[in-house]
């Protein structure tokens, strides 16, 4: 995990040194990537769906104030209690208060990035309340005191043998096999009683429907369905950007999301609920509308498209950087390309200035994004902001000098001539094997092709 204040390159250094992690990641990302490509190809209207998803999200962002009030009114009319939370502390306080009111010492949780973002579990623990993760991967991480490294597959950095050994130490002492079904059964036995006893469930939401106040969670395991239906009380924390105008709009996203996320045509469980219903499901529903930096992102004309994200993680799986370093190097619950543009905006560019530079700008993320977030464009925007905010004077002077040289053919030709003289000291066997810092970073792993004896423009350039 990236330590506070540690830069991406420094954090990546540790992760890259772990060959098991590299192998686990390469395996997993390649598998999901291939599955995604296959199910996306079978839809002839995929590009139109992406356009629709993008347009719906743009409309929601442009009219968020109206949609939020509509959502609140619909929820209230359906019997829910709505709480507005400016930040994580306010949101966590609501959950603690509800749990205390019902004498709950444990709450059961659906996998939720919003609750990870606000560190709900830690906050509840301080109040003496245990938050039990019920998603298989989240449970693994919780048992091991580990952190998520992927938006959708939080334990992607662990393989099944590591998981079997962890279970043997914790919830299933006698377990021998590392077969997925055996591991899942161990988790199921561990969780079942806790579901039945829980007084309070906590969830996030993939979508909130403004018109009806309906909440939607999509998942693969069924634990989410249990958390949102078994306990008599449910608290749902939803980022304010997660709204869609009407139920009909879900038609677009419920096609885009599973295909982009797990490479499935449809996800196994899609739960929708609207307020409370007599004798069916939770009889008390609290909905927390979480800002936590989102309105600040919304104010940035170029950066705001990061709020369109539906957390599918397709961009992680195709990213050459993510698939080598893994998620921990990003030091945020939002890793990968989307994290590189979302995290610095949510917590302030000055607190994560290296993240927008953690990309080769290959553009693979933009190509797969189901809601067409132009991640490379936002990266460039945030790089400029990082330079303006915390940029070093050395780099700024070097860049300005380079621009001065590059601006005129005559200056560029003079610089080339100087370079050719300087490189005589560095050449060995026709290439440059060692350069002084900061360019030594290049030659540690790569040779450098030297400047040619004569430049092309010098050879046949004409005055216009």
């Amino acid at each position, binding site marked *: 995990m990236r330590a506070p204040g540690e830069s991406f390159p420094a954090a990546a250094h540790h992760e890259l040194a772990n060959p098991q992690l590299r192998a686990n990641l390469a395996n997993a990302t390649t598998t999901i990537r291939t599955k995604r490509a296959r199910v996306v190809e079978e839809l002839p209207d995929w590009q139109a769906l992406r356009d629709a998803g993008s347009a719906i999200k743009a409309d929601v962002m442009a009219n968020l104030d109206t949609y939020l009030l509509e959502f609140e009114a619909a929820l209230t009319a359906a019997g829910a209690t709505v709480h507005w939370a400016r930040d994580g502390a306010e949101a966590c306080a609501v959950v603690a208060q509800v749990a205390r009111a019902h004498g709950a010492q444990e709450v059961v949780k659906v996998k939720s990035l919003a609750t990870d973002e606000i560190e709900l579990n830690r906050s509840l623990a301080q109040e003496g309340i245990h938050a039990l993760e019920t998603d298989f991967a989240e449970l693994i991480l919780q048992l091991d005191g580990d952190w998520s490294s992927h938006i959708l597959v939080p334990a992607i950095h662990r393989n099944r043998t590591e998981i079997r050994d962890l279970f043997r130490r914790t919830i299933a002492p006698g377990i021998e096999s590392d077969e997925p079904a055996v591991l899942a059964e161990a988790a199921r036995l561990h969780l079942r009683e806790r579901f039945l006893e829980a007084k309070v469930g906590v969830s996030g939401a993939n979508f909130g429907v403004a018109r009806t106040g309906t909440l939607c969670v999509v998942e693969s395991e069924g634990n989410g369905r249990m958390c949102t239906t078994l306990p008599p009380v449910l608290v749902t924390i939803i980022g304010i950007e997660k709204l869609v105008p009407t139920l009909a709009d879900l038609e677009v996203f419920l096609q885009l999301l599973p295909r982009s996320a797990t490479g499935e045509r449809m996800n196994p469980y899609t739960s929708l609920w609207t307020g409370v219903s007599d004798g069916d499901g939770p009889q008390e529903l609290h909905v927390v509308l979480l800002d936590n930096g989102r309105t600040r992102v919304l104010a940035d004309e170029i950066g705001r498209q990061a709020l369109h994200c539906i957390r599918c993680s397709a961009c992680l799986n195709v990213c050459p950087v993510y698939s080598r370093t893994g998620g921990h190097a990003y030091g945020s619950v939002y890793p990968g390309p989307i994290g590189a543009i979302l995290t610095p905006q949510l917590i302030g560019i000055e607190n994560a200035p290296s993240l927008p530079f953690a990309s080769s700008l290959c553009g693979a993320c933009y190509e797969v994004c189901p809601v067409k977030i132009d991640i490379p464009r936002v990266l460039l925007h945030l790089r400029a902001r990082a330079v303006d905010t915390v940029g070093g004077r050395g780099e700024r002077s070097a860049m300005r000098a380079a621009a001065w040289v590059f601006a005129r053919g005559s200056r560029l030709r003079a610089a080339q001539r100087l370079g050719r003289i300087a490189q005589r000291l560095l050449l060995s066997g026709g*290439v440059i094997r060692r350069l002084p810092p900061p360019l030594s970073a290049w030659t540690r792993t790569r040779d450098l092709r030297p400047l040619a004896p004569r430049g092309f423009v010098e050879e046949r*350039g004409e005055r216009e």
Partner: protein
Amino acid sequence: MRIGLFATCVADAMFPAAARATATLLERLGHQVVVPREQGCCGQMHINAGHPHDARALAQRFIRTYGEFDAVVSPSSSCVGAIRDLYPNVLGLEAEVLSRTLELSEFLVHRLGVEDVGARFPHRVTYHPTCHSLRVARVGDAPLRLLRSVRELELLELPQATECCGFGGTFSIKNAETSSAILLDKCAAVQRSGAEFCAALDGSCLLQIGGGLSRAGSAVRTIHLAEILVSR
């Protein structure tokens, strides 16, 4: 056609043979090629590194230098992508010449409709489609069409071809270890292809892949697409 050749700073200094080949190819097709002496850098590095203000003067110079040509052709999709995409979208600069600026392979195939340039290159070649050629300049399969028409050239498939080589401009320095980890896999794929040459149409990516192969002591050589197309 009167064509302005934009060599790019990387090709000008490090791959002059690619720029020369570009000029020769266009002249063989009967066009007049002008190489303005005042050309510099397109400014992509400055934009990508977070210094768009410094790039502005470079972009304006490009527009002034090349404004009068029927077309501008360059042996780099990355620089052409920067000119067509980043000038208007990041710098807010619009000019007619931007849409007339084309990478060599797209100029030949899409603009002129030429796939066979009469080349002969008796070698095993694999082709690395660079990220910006695919996703920014969007040259499509133009380079492959050209390569398939080259006599005696054996085109070998590159495993995981569309994956980045890890260059990324200043990324290769600022995140050198990650860049190198990506490169390692690309070099392994090039090696597995069984080719003698790894071709691409961007000098910057050739710098990265060539640097990796050379350090690994590989016998595979990198080559710019234009150099193959000009061979007879």
